């Protein structure tokens, strides 16, 4: 019994240290109260998002403006959609910006997030080697293209990391009634940039989001094969983490972020992003 009590004591001690630290932290944040009605105080907002929004430079383009407007400084944690949602569920972040509609709906249904909003969409394309062993170049129907790749056993590199892109790809295989298996189907479990690099090295096909493709295409040789199919659209949503599940999250900031992204100004900036750098728009704003 005494052992158990000891253990309890240790746990209590550790907890109280954390508590003290937390209180001290809060006090610190509040004490230098800035002049009223001035957004001089920088409040920190934690955002978990997918690598695509970070890698394309979209966030670097939007966030300084958001900070200027609201006084919130955003710390970005760029991971796969799966992990971003996981972070939201654990209350490690205040808001998530991801692209996997089914997983997003589940996140909201289970009460981890509230008030999901459409923000924008981009699209995916299939890229592959110029000699096109599966003969899919220009094929308008992505399902047929996937069937041809499987038919020819042409090498295909899959993210295989449960990310939004990976879920999209798995969804297309499923819709085409194909179970991708065998030596030709290469699951690498890495990010989009790494997957692009490996597909290029292996002269394989892969599914890629347009933003990453445009940002990196000059480094590699793979070419666009299939694009424009409705099955290749990729909608993004922003979801504040539910403060009822995690009282410590900054719900106010998260809502401000969601509102800003879907505001006229945020939407206009999203639509303009990339035009000067890539000669085409990367994301299409679609907030309602």
């Amino acid at each position, binding site marked *: 019994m005494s052992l158990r009590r000891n253990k309890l004591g240790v746990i209590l001690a550790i907890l109280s240290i954390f508590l003290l630290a937390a209180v001290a932290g809060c006090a610190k944040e509040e004490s230098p109260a800035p002049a009223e009605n001035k957004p001089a105080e920088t409040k920190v907002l934690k955002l978990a998002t997918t690598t695509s929004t970070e890698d394309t430079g979209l966030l670097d383009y939007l966030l300084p403006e958001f900070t200027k407007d609201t006084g919130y400084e955003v710390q970005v944690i760029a*991971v*796969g959609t*799966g*992990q971003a*949602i*996981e*972070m939201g569920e*654990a209350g490690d972040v205040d808001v998530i910006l991801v692209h996997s509609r089914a997983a997003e709906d589940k996140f909201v249904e289970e009460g981890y997030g509230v008030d999901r909003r459409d923000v924008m969409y981009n699209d995916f394309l299939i890229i592959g080697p110029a000699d096109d062993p599966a003969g899919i170049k220009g094929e308008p129907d992505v399902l047929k293209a996937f069937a041809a790749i499987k038919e020819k056993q042409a090498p295909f590199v899959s993210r*295989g*990391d*449960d990310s939004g892109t990976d879920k999209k790809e798995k969804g297309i295989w499923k819709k085409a009634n194909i179970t991708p298996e065998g030596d030709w189907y*290469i*699951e*690498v*479990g*890495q990010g989009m940039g790494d997957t692009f690099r*490996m597909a290029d*090295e*292996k002269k394989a096909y892969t599914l890629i989001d347009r933003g990453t493709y445009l940002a990196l295409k000059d480094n590699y040789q793979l070419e666009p094969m299939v694009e424009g199919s409705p099955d290749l659209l990729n909608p993004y949503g922003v979801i504040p983490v539910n403060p009822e599940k995690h009282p410590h999250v900054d719900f106010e900031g998260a809502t401000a972020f969601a509102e800003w992204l879907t505001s006229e100004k945020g939407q206009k900036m999203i639509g303009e992003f990339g035009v000067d750098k890539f000669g085409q728009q990367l994301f299409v704003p679609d907030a309602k």
Partner: protein
Amino acid sequence: MEIIVQGLKEGFLLIWQGDAEIVNVTLLSLQVSLTALVIAALIGIPLGAALALRNFRGKHIILNTIYTLMGLPPVLAGLLVYLLLTSRGPLGQYELLFTPAAMVIAQVLLAAPIVCGLTARAVMALSQEVYDTAATLGASRRQATLTIMREARMGIVAALTTALGRVIAEVGAVMLVGGNIRWHTRVLTTSIVLETRMGNFSTAIAIGIILLVISFAINLLILALEKRTFRYENTIQIT
């Protein structure tokens, strides 16, 4: 706290059930790292001994270089091997990138300096007396050298353990040159990265446990070896 306990529980369960993928990943890890270790030993031990026992110009520069390479960042080793093996690189025609062979090459690059450097240190730590005694007793040059190597054997074993510990726990190089391809080049460390990124913490912990158990087993083996070797010899004791 809950997530760690939960992870440990599920982790042990996964191992207990002998999940096919985890078994595959574990075996590949062992295969790659042990192969790399054998090659590193074949290069590193003779080279280390030669560096310790012979005097020549530039010896210290070479030793210093090797000591520096002992701390070579794995991801840099990976990058070098990647650039050699990429299809546009000098060895591109052999199509070794993203194969276990590429991972072995990268790990040899990491392990060989450790084996070489620590062997050299172990041999240099022996006094001149060992050689002199052997020579006095009528040993040929070759025999005396062998005697020295025998005396330094525990240091060499320690070198091998250190090298194995480093390569089996290394993630940067194998991720780059192996590519973490499922069923082909996915090893314990790259699995942990992937599972963590996917939020599958229990699987990640399970694989972490395997990694620790392997390290523990290696050290147990060394300890047993050490005991047997020194059974009839005097070890230092404070009385």
